[in-house]
């Protein structure tokens, strides 16, 4: 079923644009890399604040508020370009073990962010200004950094083992 969807995706005009045009693929990859730098390069600072390693005198909520715009622009660039690349090479990606690792870790990072948002952050008012946030927040920071580091590594491994 999933494989059939992948095959259909590869028959679309978008897939043709990515795979057939001279500069289509490299341009999308370049946008993907810039998005990666902006998103993961920024989210790491929020994670380090959760770990009590940087900006310890600034409230956690302020750190998030200030970093969020850059982070969001980066994630939109990264996910949109990533989706376009996937459309072009869906079947090869589907069969690639590094793609599966990357996808699993993106899901883990997403679940981690959701758990932080819906549970840990609910009691934020109590520890917002703490230089060293509580264990649950620190755990969210560690999981986030580890997830994104593996996503970056698996993503690059994938591009060398897929074609």
């Amino acid at each position: 079923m999933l494989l059939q969807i992948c095959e259909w995706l590869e028959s679309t005009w978008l897939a043709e644009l990515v795979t057939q045009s001279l500069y289509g693929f490299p341009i999308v990859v370049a946008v993907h890399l810039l998005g990666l730098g902006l998103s993961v390069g920024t989210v790491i600072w929020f994670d380090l604040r959760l770990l009590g390693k940087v900006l310890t005198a600034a409230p956690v909520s302020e750190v998030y508020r200030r970093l969020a715009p850059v982070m969001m622009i980066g994630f939109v660039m990264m996910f949109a370009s990533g989706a376009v690349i996937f459309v072009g090479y869906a079947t090869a990606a589907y069969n690639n073990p590094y793609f599966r690792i990357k996808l699993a870790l993106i899901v883990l990072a997403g679940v981690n962010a959701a758990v932080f948002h819906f549970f840990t952050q609910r009691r934020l008012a109590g520890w917002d200004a703490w230089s060293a946030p509580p264990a649950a927040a620190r755990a969210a920071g560690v999981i986030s950094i580890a997830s994104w580091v593996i996503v970056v590594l698996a993503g690059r491994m994938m591009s060398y083992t897929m074609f």
Partner: protein
Amino acid sequence: MEAALTWYQNSAVASAVGNSPTITAVLSAFHALGFTFVMGGALFANLGKLGALFPSRPVEEMAGPGSRLIALGLVLSLPTGVLLVGPKAITAAHNSTFQLKLLLILAASAVQFGLLRRGTRAVGALGLTLWIGLALAACAFILLE
């Protein structure tokens, strides 16, 4: 220079990298991770210097950690980059985009580690411009490779 490049391109290390897709993939993975750290550090340190991220916080709270993350990124990306370029060292050395990339690494590092702590906001703007230029040159190198 040409002789050194020829020696390096024909060396056992460059051959090992060129003949092994796995080694190339692993090197490239850590090169990309280093790039991510450099970008993250550059944004944090230089936007901090410009007062665009945390205007109420002292600049040192961003410049110090930002520069340290850049240093970690360079420790990862420079050696892996040197190894990755081995199999095509001569071609790369004559590629103007690659030359620009090297020049930007030197200039951005000089501004970041030499001037940022003492400099004014203009230094932050210059640093940010150079690091973004480097990221664009890196992408252009992929485009034109």
